[in-house]
Structures are given as structure tokens and as C-alpha cells.
């Protein structure tokens, strides 16, 4: 009988491939953002609003993660934007090897911004680094103001938080102050952008935050 000391990180392979994704996008000067939310929070409509605001000035591609179907990537493609669909085949989150394959089919050098739409889930995507420059989560008003208390991890890991569907606040019992106070406790440094993606309300503050980061990473034209 023997006791073998291993002391090995379990996500070593994921983290190694994520670091390769990061290097690839760093070398190309492209900013990669991982958008996370529960199903129906408005990831796709937030992406569409972002595309509309930025498409004249930036070269954008979208990596769509879903358990099944290509509904979302077809929506993005119908707007004339490159989209790569990843079907996880049941898995509840994206992992870095899936992103590596998606990056492999994109002309990364010819892009400024890659938006990853993670699988709809407030839990599992939290634990997987994909090589992104920022993790951003979306909560929508109908989901309720108590979600930061129930799913603290995703609020803590996010670099910015979008509160979507604020135009529906009058019909839902959503306590904005309680929500902001819970978020502040969990992640005091993350900005919260209050938007309605489908009407464009409040979207500018999110766009300003994002473009500042895309510009910072963009390679100067030679």
C-alpha cells in the first residue's frame, strides 16, 4: 500500500488551454468577453444591442454556447455578424477547449471584439476560466432581487454586472435598492449597468465600459 501525494489542480487542462486562448487573443489585440446569465435573462438581446451600438466602429464576432440548437447563432448571423455555434451536448457550461476550437475557425487577427455567450446557467460557468479578458453577468428584473443572495459566486466572479429588462420593473416586485446593496456587499468594485436591451434604455453606460476596454487592447494600426 502507498500514499501518493499529487497536489494537482483539477482544472489544470482547462486552465492551460484558457491561457493559450488568452495568448492568442492578446497577440491579435482582440478583447474577449464572457457573458453569463440564466436562460431568458436576455443574453442574446444584450448582444444584439451591443452589436448595433458597435458595428460601425468595431469588428465583432460571437461565440454562442448552447446545450443544443443553433437558434442564437442564426439570429446573430442574420444581422451580418460572424457567429460560431458551440453545442455542449448536455454540458451546463463552456470549457476552454470549446473556445479554442471556436477561435480556430475565426479570423482572430481581423477582429476587435469577441463576445462569448455562455450556456444559460448561474452556477457552473463561474468555475471555468475560458481565457476571456472579462466575465460579465446579466440578471433580469423578472428573476428577482434576491438572486445575489442565492447565487453569490457568479456575482463575485464578474467584472461587471448588467441588470436587464429594467423597463419591466413596474410589473415585478423587484426591490432595486435591495439588489444593489446585495451586489455591493458581494462585489464592491463591479459596476452595475441598468439597461433594457430591447429598447436601448441605459445601454450607453455598458457600451462605454466595454469600448474603453476594447480600445485599450486594440493594436494600433500600422
Amino acid at each position: 500500500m502507498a500514499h501518493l501525494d499529487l497536489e494537482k489542480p483539477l482544472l489544470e487542462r482547462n486552465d492551460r488551454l484558457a491561457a493559450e486562448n488568452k495568448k492568442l487573443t492578446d497577440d491579435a489585440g482582440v478583447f474577449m468577453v464572457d457573458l453569463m446569465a440564466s436562460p431568458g435573462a436576455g443574453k442574446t438581446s444584450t448582444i444584439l444591442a451591443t452589436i448595433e451600438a458597435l458595428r460601425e466602429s468595431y469588428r465583432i464576432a460571437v461565440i454562442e454556447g448552447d446545450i443544443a440548437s443553433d437558434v442564437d447563432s442564426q439570429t446573430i448571423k442574420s444581422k451580418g455578424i460572424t457567429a460560431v455555434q458551440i453545442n455542449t451536448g448536455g454540458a451546463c457550461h463552456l470549457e476552454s477547449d470549446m473556445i479554442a476550437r471556436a477561435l480556430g475557425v475565426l479570423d482572430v487577427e481581423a477582429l476587435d471584439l469577441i463576445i462569448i455567450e455562455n450556456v444559460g446557467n448561474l452556477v457552473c460557468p463561474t468555475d471555468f476560466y475560458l481565457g476571456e479578458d472579462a466575465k460579465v453577468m446579466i440578471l433580469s428584473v423578472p428573476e428577482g432581487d434576491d438572486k445575489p443572495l442565492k447565487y453569490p459566486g457568479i456575482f463575485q466572479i464578474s467584472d461587471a454586472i448588467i441588470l436587464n429588462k429594467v423597463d419591466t420593473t413596474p410589473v415585478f416586485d423587484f426591490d432595486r435598492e435591495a439588489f444593489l446593496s446585495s451586489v455591493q456587499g458581494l462585489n464592491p468594485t463591479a459596476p452595475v449597468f441598468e439597461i433594457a436591451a430591447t429598447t436601448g434604455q441605459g445601454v450607453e453606460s455598458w457600451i462605454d465600459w466595454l469600448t474603453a476596454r476594447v480600445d485599450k487592447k486594440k493594436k494600433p494600426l500600422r
Partner: protein
Amino acid sequence: MHEMSIMESVFDNAYEACKSSGYTTITRIELTFGEMTEISEDSLRFAFDALKEGGPAANAELAINVLAPRSQCLECGAEYDHDRFSVKCPECGSVITKLLQGREMQIDAVEVE
């Protein structure tokens, strides 16, 4: 339920270590998880029982060590333990902090024979 894919990585590592050391049976697997991860111990044990069947670890026991979060204040330098909900510095109230411990997911050791 990403515990299933985490547990697959546990078994990959355990089988590899067992085989490369010339042993055939795994009797115990020791893991460490930080409380700031999204891992549920119940789901982890369920995945362990489901995946160990029919393999070299079929009769192995699972030991899980849970690490409480620990942070350092980047303003006053204090180091402190905290729960998973509040990361603020208890000394000076600063929110500019760095997590030192709490996001670990590691296979520590295996016992083989």
C-alpha cells in the same frame, strides 16, 4: 452539475497516478475544495459513486477537505478569514482586496495498493 466533469478529472488523475506507480487498486482519494467555488459536496459524492463503479477505485473512499476563504486587504495589508458572502476588510473597511484562498479545486493524494 459540473461536479460530474470535475470528478472525471479526479479519476483521470487518480488512475494515471495509480498505474504509473505500478499499483492496481485505489483505496482512497483526497480532495481539497475552496468554499468560494460552485461545488456542492453532495453532488461531488454522487458523481464519485457513479463514476467509480467497475474501475480500479470501485471500493475507494472519498475524503473532501473544505477550505474557508481568506483574503488580504490591498490598502491596509490585513489578512483575514471571511465567509463566502462578505469580502470587505474587517480592519479598515476597504473593498480593494485579494482572495488568497477559497477557489481551490485540487486532488491532494491517492492511496493505492
